[in-house]
């Protein structure tokens, strides 16, 4: 019996991993950059399963109780009995808003390793003038690990490039893949972006610690997995009379301002117009995507 359970566990979890990778559901759980790890895991599990096949007749090396097997089957049971989805708004108040101060935003830059920085800058700078990109490439080249843990000139350049791009846009949008980078940039370069037109999409969330009519147009920001997701976004003010339910997806357009909260200064926009939109399949925005 134990042998069969072990077989089900190995092949079942391998199947589950392949299944979520193929259907793209993986991004509901993990940052897509971890996908190779998941595929390797599926292969390793199948190897273990195969080894179990070869040892069907042998007695087990040690005893495992029913509870142990049940626990290992739990991921399969959960997946099929309580089909997971993107986190919904009821989690938002439990997760809490990630109030990134400009200082913290600067710390977040360390996330960039050398390769990311240079490739991403190359990608971003295509629109910019040649001189700019040459300067940046020169400065990124000799980056080392130590430099990455300090506020090196190279990481600032990355954000300067973004703010440069943002200033050139007629209406600032945050996009999907660039969401977190651009949001951080807005906080870091408050002076330069104030007064620009901005358009932003997200779900409605009323944080507990802000005035009643204050709404956060939110997204879940995921670093690695859904467990570390937190709420990010831009504040706006929508009249209470509109009675938007928490979790409704809206697109808001307005002039970008900044407002003072107990956690620091945050981007805020007074909407000139807004309208409801359909919830996207993927409620998350990913760090380091």
């Amino acid at each position, binding site marked *: 019996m134990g042998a069969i359970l072990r077989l089900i566990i190995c092949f079942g979890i391998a199947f589950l991993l392949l299944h979520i990778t193929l259907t793209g559901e993986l991004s509901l759980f993990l940052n897509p950059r971890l996908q190779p790890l998941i595929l390797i895991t599926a292969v390793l599990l199948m190897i273990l399963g195969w080894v179990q096949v070869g040892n069907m007749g042998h007695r087990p090396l040690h005893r495992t109780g029913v509870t142990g097997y049940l626990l290992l089957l739990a991921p399969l049971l959960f997946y099929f009995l309580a089909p997971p989805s993107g986190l919904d708004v009821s*989690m938002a108040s439990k997760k809490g808003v990630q109030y990134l101060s400009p200082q913290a935003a600067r710390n977040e830059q360390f996330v960039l390793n050398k390769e990311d920085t240079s490739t991403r800058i190359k990608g971003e700078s295509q629109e910019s003038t040649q001189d700019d990109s040459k300067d940046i490439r020169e400065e990124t080249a000799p980056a080392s690990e130590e430099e990455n843990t300090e506020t090196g000139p190279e990481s600032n350049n990355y954000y300067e490039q973004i703010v440069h791009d943002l200033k050139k846009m007629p209406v600032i949008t945050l996009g999907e893949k660039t969401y977190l980078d651009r949001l951080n940039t807005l906080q870091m370069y408050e002076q330069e972006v104030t007064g620009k037109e901005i358009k932003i999409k997200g779900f409605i969330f009323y944080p507990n610690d802000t005035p009643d009519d204050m709404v956060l147009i939110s997204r879940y920001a995921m670093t690695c997995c859904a467990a570390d997701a937190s709420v990010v976004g831009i504040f706006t003010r929508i009249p209470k009379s509109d009675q938007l339910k928490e979790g409704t997806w809206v697109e808001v357009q307005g002039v970008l301002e900044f407002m003072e909260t107990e956690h620091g200064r945050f981007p805020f926009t007074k909407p000139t117009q807004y309208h409801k939109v359909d919830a996207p399949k993927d409620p998350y925005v990913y760090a380091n995507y």
Partner: protein
Amino acid sequence: MVKWIREYRIEVTGLVVMATFLITMVYGIDILEQWRNQTEGLSAWSADLRNLSTLFLSIFFEGIPFILMGVFVSGIIHVFTGGDVIGRLIPKNRILAVFPAAFLGLLLPVCECGVIPVARRLIQKGLPSYVAFTFLLAVPVINPITIFSTYIAFGNQWEMVVQRTLVAAIIAVVMGLLCSFFLKGNVLKDKESPSSCDCEDSRDHPHPAHTKGRLRHALYHSLFEFVDMGKYFVAGALLAASFQTFIGLAAIREFAQNEWLAVLVMMLLAFGMSLCSSADAFVAASFRTALSTPPLLAFLVFGPIMDLKNLLMMSAHFQTKVILFFVAGTTLLTLLSVGFFYLI
């Protein structure tokens, strides 16, 4: 017919399993999708359940690659090297012996679940108990897999990795030295209690001599280590996901007002969650938005050396006075070393 099946049972089972797997891969997805659309009702029943499921699975998916990596490596090492190699490498001098023991994990990467039977085995083979204890405390943190997963979890930053490794090394070395002065005599329980992780007992099952057989055996070892560690890991992931769903990280933020309280709460959490050291960094990273570095460090350092499941496994092998000494020592040292971080 029956005789034929018995003779080729391995091949037959193999074929059946592969066929089932392939069929499930090809047709199963559609069928399961349909079935899941019908059971949507179950999760509509409660948003909490759906969120719990999402969080639990995301922690599970994230941790399982690292657990498998650890299991494979340690399974192979278990069978191919054996404990005596380590015994020969350790010098006789007390202080000289303790330091390298703290970094043995870099050569012998076993997770915290695998390290207890290894440490017990080493003591049985005549290694001084204090060296084994240093090893026991340091290995779960100072090994390539944990270092790698901490690095990934904290967004490719070395800062937390370095702090975690250093603090763990200091605690392990100090505990080792303390043990060498205060713990005399037999530390193991006299009678060998049957345990869930007796893989080190070669008398339990002889290890085959030829290489191919040994590889098969190593892999079979890995399978059982996976089952043994996996169950604790799943339990931990479930606890952590329930905590996030029903209590919420925002609650921890309340404690974050008082840093010392936050440190204590995180140590308690680490103890209760009993996450595998190769995956706990991801959980710690999820608290990153709510807490400053010292409480996170307390979680990351205390969790691998002292938690519910380790305590269960240790109490099966070691005497009660040793356990008490361990709990008191590691708790105090973690508090001290984390407190040190406030000073600088």
